[in-house]
């Protein structure tokens, strides 16, 4: 009789253990999703800021048409892959960062532009948005690392395998120039 109770107790304990582990995995997967959504918010913010910036710079530097076109093109290229996975997006966004870097480098040559309040405000917004993009990417990658560790390490990998949890994809920078981000601070 006693043996039966002990076995029953062990089964219940194991069950509770499995439930806790499963819930932990679900929680982490949701955190990954949430972190990804954060990156998305910031990338959208950057798309929204760009037309304004281009207009402001155009007013002072009409002859730099190529630079403007590059930025506009990179922006629409990035917007086209909005619903794809991290790898494709990272590449497109890297291209956009690069084009923006060039635009700010060009702006450097126009003192009137650099004194423009509107431009300065836009510049601060874009600098901050770039920071937010990299911070949210940093947080996303940390969360993915934790999630992937849980899905691959014993004993939670058993649950992950049974419940079909797949390792999440890192948001990695693929464009070489993005690894040394262009300096967009003119202070």
């Amino acid at each position, binding site marked *: 009789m006693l043996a039966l109770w002990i076995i029953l107790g062990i089964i219940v304990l194991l069950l509770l253990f499995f439930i806790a582990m499963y819930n932990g995995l679900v929680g982490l997967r949701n955190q990954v999703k949430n972190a990804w959504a954060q990156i998305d918010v*910031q990338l959208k913010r950057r798309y929204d800021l760009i037309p304004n910036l281009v207009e402001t710079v155009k007013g002072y530097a009409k002859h730099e048409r190529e630079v403007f076109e590059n930025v506009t093109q990179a922006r629409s290229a990035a917007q086209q892959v909005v619903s794809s996975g991290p790898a494709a997006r990272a590449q497109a966004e890297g291209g956009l960062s690069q084009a923006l870097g060039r635009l700010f480098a060009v702006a450097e040559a126009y003192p009137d532009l650099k004194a423009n309040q509107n431009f300065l*405000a836009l510049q601060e917004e874009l600098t*901050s948005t770039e*920071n937010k993009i990299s*911070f949210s990417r940093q*947080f996303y990658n940390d969360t993915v690392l*934790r999630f992937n560790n849980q899905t691959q390490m014993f004993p939670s990998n058993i649950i992950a395998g049974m419940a079909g949890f797949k390792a999440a994809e890192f948001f990695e920078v693929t464009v070489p120039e993005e690894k040394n981000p262009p300096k967009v601070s003119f*202070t």
Partner: protein
Amino acid sequence: MWEQIKSNRFRSAVLVVFMGILLLAIGFVIGEYFLRSYLGGLAIAGVVWAIMSLIAFFQGDSILLGVSGARKISKSDNPVLFNVVEEISIASGLPKIPDVYIINDPALNAFSTGRDPNKATVAITSGLLEKLNRDELQGVMAHEIGHIKNRDVLLMSISAVMLGAIVILSWYATRVMFWGGGRRSDRRDSGGGGAQAILMILGLVLLILAPIFAQLIYLATSRKREYLADASSALYTRYPEGLASALEKLGASSVQVKAANQATAPMYIINPFGKKRAINDWMSTHPPIAERVRILRAMGGNSYADYEKAYGLSHKGQGIVPKSALSNG
């Protein structure tokens, strides 16, 4: 890497329980001495503690912000400060961006409050805001958000309330004992003899030592949390130099924060009283600035493990970051 909170909770529980025992011991002595029943003393201690806790819990933020004369700002008031706070909130994964306050004070300091990450506040003096560049501001704000993320505000206010209750109770009890001469003399069973006298002296010793002891625990905890918030700052910004150079600027200034007092001191980024008050390292709420800068500059990377290593260099290999935080990073 993000799991430090769990082990913090255990450590905090130990600290709070220990201070709670001290508080109960004081209640016990007071009860025995004045009321002839320890239960009455325990009740007094409990009531004092409960009232102070309630005030701290519901009014703590507004008292701290009110006393320091802080003014809430919106994005248009100072876009850079606002953006920096947003950036670090994202980096730390805070669920909600904290309210941002500016204190009109030439002194250089900053603090954070809020008992849980959903309802937090960061504040900075206008003096500091003027002195720092963007990277340094990021380091300072990351330190403050580190406090919020590590739940230091909650821990430090709970222990500050305990400390306050202990200090108040033992202060009044010892004064009344000295001035009133004690009501013990007219007790029926005053012929208890030597054993009772010894107990009385022990009680008195406890009343005198408990506040000192509680204060030392409190200060040691506060310093530990400062180191940990520095480590969090390096982790969030991935740039320890920002905070290091900000701390150097803070250290070079000797202006005191006008509205600070002993109770609110641990909330600030550096000791708001300046150098004069920090007579000894272990009598201070904050570790020495030079030491904090040295650790940040000695970091090989930006993780908690790197901070741990740098800290160990000058502390005989001792640790500061909780084990669970290290294993996850």
